[in-house]
């Protein structure tokens, strides 16, 4: 069965069962492995993408739910790592193992798009959807504050 949607501005059509999680369509069919598999249960946030400007756990999103919509993955956040969140992530040297960071960055980008000057509490609340086992939370917090200031 064919499903058509946009990924990073490009129209794509895939022929896979409609109940396949979007995560696996992105990784296996569209060959963009920057969106990560961590728990398969919407608990860790490593798979976070944008759908029509909102964040979504792609492991919990069926392909059919993305039909006709616009999906953004980490590969499409900016062409050259120039998104303010990506720049702040490097300035604060956030990543350790880095595996969860695609998802963290995608969430942070939505947060700042919706709320350019979030309070500390709002950042903590929003980002607590994610797990970083390396424990880079203090730097994630600082990087979001930096991105908010430096826009």
């Amino acid at each position, binding site marked *: 069965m064919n499903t058509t949607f946009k990924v990073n501005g490009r129209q794509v059509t895939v022929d896979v069962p409609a109940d396949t999680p979007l995560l*696996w369509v992105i990784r296996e069919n569209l060959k963009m*492995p920057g969106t990560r598999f961590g728990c398969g249960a919407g608990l860790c946030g490593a798979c976070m993408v944008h759908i029509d400007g909102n964040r979504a756990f792609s492991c919990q999103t069926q392909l059919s739910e993305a039909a006709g919509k616009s999906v953004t993955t980490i590969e499409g956040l900016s062409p050259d790592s120039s998104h303010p969140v990506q720049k702040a992530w490097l300035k604060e040297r*956030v990543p350790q*193992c*880095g*595996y969860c960071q695609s998802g963290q960055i995608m969430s942070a980008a939505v947060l700042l798009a919706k709320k350019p000057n979030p309070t500390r509490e709002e950042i903590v609340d929003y980002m*607590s959807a994610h*797990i970083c086992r390396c424990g*880079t*939370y203090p730097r994630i917090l600082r990087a979001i504050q930096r991105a908010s200031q430096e826009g």
Partner: protein
Amino acid sequence: MSNSTTAISPRTLSRRSVMLGATGLTFAIAAGSWKPARGAFGLEMNAWVTIFTDGRIQIMSPASEMGQGSKTTLPLILAEEMDAEWTDVRIVPAPPSDAIYGNPGFLGMMYTAGSTAVFGYFEELRTFGAQIRQVLIENAASLLAVRTVELTTEPSTVVHPPSGRKLSYGAIAGFAKVPPSAPNITREQLKKPEAFRLIGHDVMRYELPSKVNGSARYSIDVEVPEMLYGAMLYPPSVGAHLDKLSDVNARKVPDLIGIYQLPIGIGVVAGTPWAAWSARDAITVEWRKDPKNADFDSDTAQDRYAKIVNGDIAQKSALWDKAGAGIEKLSSAASTISAEFRCDYAYHAQIEPLNAVAAVAADGKSVDLWCGTQSQTMAVKTAADTLGIPIENVRFHEMLLGGAFGRRGPRDEDFILPALLLSREVKKPIKVMWTREDDIHNGRFRPLSAHRLEAGFDSSGALETWHHRVATDNVGIFQDPIRYYGPWHERDMISMAGTEITTYGIPNRLSEHFAVDSGIRVSALRGIGFTANKFAIETFMDELARSRGRDPAEFRMSLLHDSPRSAKVLETVAKMADWERKRDGKALGVAYIDYSGSQVAGVAEISLDAKSGQIRVHNFWVAIDPGIAVQPDNIVNQIEGSVVFGLGLALTERITIAQGEVQQSNFYDYTVLRMRDIPEIHVEVISSGAKPTGVGQMATPLVAPAVSNAFAELTGVRLRHTPMTSDRVLATLAAR
């Protein structure tokens, strides 16, 4: 971890390890009777540093990159002494060879663990870098017809100050001759710390930019032509055997390729990951458990371990550490105090689930292997042994590790076996990814433990005797029998590390291990034995202080009189936390650790929600002296992460086992900390001039005792069992 009993043959530059090539100059480190190795990798296998005629400098890095940064730090140390311009340097993963790239600080193995990378390689890499610089200077001297002493270097350039002439390293590589003998470098010829341009100055880790745009590649991302997907149905408990299997429904799954009974479980191969998991889940199976662990229950086992350390169940112990008269003076002590502590199983929870990709050749005689491992050479050996082929026929492709924390380093490299075995079956490349549930159910845990501590004071009130008895599952036998029966001499270092409290000036000490071969999977986990042992030791130390009416920080300080670096971190952290200041509704607790030479002290500030029993940690301060701080900001990052990790172990993380089966399945019942759970973390790095020691896990074991001690300060009640969950807090308060 120190491995001082094993001699490592010193490697150094020798004349025949300098190689001239068409593109540049290559330097190899000679190991003992070094000869150019002609394996699958050819001559390049020996190259450690290559200077290209266009000025690029390639440096091999033997460390695995799991987020700790030493893949960058090791080449940086070499580049410092060689005086290379950092922007000229390209870091390349070193191919698997213990002889050439093994860590002198880790039994000569290529094994990134124990926070030993910088510590282990530091002196060798500096000397090697200095030798390379000297070879370049000697070559420049002959071209310029000047004496070598007239020459010096600027980054990537040899300079002749009297004439102002300069030669770039790349230019020298174009005409260099192999020196008649390898330069001899003395310690005095190494750079003085004030001349460091790279050490002590943070650089961008080489792989960091790839981690903000999705281009970083872990083995789970590997895709090779014709690759298929595997899934494993593992036995529910260690050693269980297959009794009955029905795969009727599994065979109806579209895209299924085959179902295979393997020595490690049942393997499924399909055209997509989704199909592989669906087919796996559709198999119905009955198992016959191993009597050794069929009835294993973690709670009753821990009660038994407690009886063992209390002497109620007789068992022989293995001596770990003894000083002075051991425990001889306990019976005649003026007063004694004893206490019992317990710690539960804990899980690594690296966010990249374990996985590997293997492509066994159609003739079965060679393999390509992609995986993220803490030991490249152990992965290669395992692949070779599993397939019955020589190690030269294993082409190893090193990938980034999406977290490890000790899980990606067992001797059997269990996580690469499914891909190897299934690829051999189907003669196609196979990727096997564990789900999170697979990763937990087949986890290898920080062992269950019980501890009994007893201290004796003399008539003057001085602490004169210390006795620590530990019972755990035997990690060494399970994780690495080769090291356990070899260099460890049947002493379980993973369980016992940290019980030798050498910096506290306690004259008579004994620590002993009651190892239980429980048949449960156990492993090193960030902080190894320190996490459990220091919880017991540092909490007990607080009880001793209070029993003498002493301030816990001051009491420790008085014991550290002969260890100025230890006293300094304790003093520093007390200042950072404003230790003397009383807080309303909050309290402070302190802990101190000598972790393989790194001196660390921490203070926790907590409050308690008396209704829910939840401990809230508001601030955590750490002072660390890791010797020379090679990459200071990276050290801070590691300490922050270590504290978060330690706080999870202290408060919430708990694996339980019933009938030999792991009871947890995903992050809803194994709860690791999130941003909302963490305190403000304050770190001060004291860069003393000492040889650098580890930073990757040293703060983790500080957290549980500091929190427990703060709880005692706040409530007057002791928490003696980690994790200190809300339920346990309420039960402990109710029982007072």
